């Protein structure tokens, strides 16, 4: 279903996600890859992102607990997580990831810890919003 063919509620929510900066162009790219044969592609990719990235989040958490001075490791894991979030168009998430990596670069552990909280918040917030959005899309079919 094309973005501009969505019924009112889903369409409204979709527009809000873009206008409020939660999603960027890459999400549109994914939508363009949907067709009648692959109508749920975006939802599948997003679901995959959330199931796959849970372990990356967990790994960062553990590293911050156990070896917080291993900035190289933190940066590596975050690089992977950022890459995936970028691939689904998660704009706010990506921004926090970049900030986290900047703190890794200057070895600022407090900055990392603070920013990681933001990463987790944006991660969870977008998850909720997208779950609601896909629910609305499904209900409309």
């Amino acid at each position, binding site marked *: 279903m094309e973005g501009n063919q969505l019924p009112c509620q889903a369409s409204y929510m979709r527009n809000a996600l873009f206008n409020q900066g939660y999603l960027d162009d890459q999400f549109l790219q994914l939508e363009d890859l949907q067709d009648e044969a692959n109508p749920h592609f975006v939802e599948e990719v997003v679901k995959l992102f959330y199931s796959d990235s849970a372990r990356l989040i967990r790994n960062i958490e553990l590293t911050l607990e156990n070896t917080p001075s291993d900035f190289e490791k933190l940066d590596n894991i975050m690089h992977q997580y950022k890459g995936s979030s970028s*691939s689904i168009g998660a704009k706010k998430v990506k921004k926090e990831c970049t900030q986290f990596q900047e703190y890794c670069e200057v070895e600022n552990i407090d900055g990392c810890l603070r920013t990681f909280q933001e990463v987790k918040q944006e991660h969870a917030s977008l998850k909720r919003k997208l779950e609601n959005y896909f629910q609305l899309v499904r209900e409309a079919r």
Partner: protein
Amino acid sequence: MAQNCEFLPCLDSNEVHVLAVDDSLVDRKVIERLLRITSCKVTSVDSGRRALQYLGLHEEEEEEEEGSAIYNEIKVDLIITDYCMPGMTGFELLKKIKGSSAFRETPVVIMSSENVVARIDRCLEEGAKEFIVKPVKLSDVERLKSSMVGQARIQ
């Protein structure tokens, strides 16, 4: 890249077969879809090591034996690989492919989320056909596909 189609059963020789290499599950799903939507056949693997295994190349050897290339049944028209991967990087994979007799003519495209000039130059100097900044778009893949089809291909 001479493939002995007269000896071996050929899949639709008009279909471009791409080997995609990326350690990210999400990115593999996306690149697979991008390639399929542009009518390419895709094989995707999650590491450089598995890519070499698929191609029948060995990690340690510089060149495989003279004779083995003839029996190489793998027909790959394009290899597209992520740069940053644990174990073997995309750059290292590129070098191995370019160092092989069977696949040195196969175009290799590098993808990376980091737009670093030195990295791009290094890859191109080592023989990469192109360097694409992630996230990869449909227009990137369409452009690649049309440049492939434009090449003279042995039927």
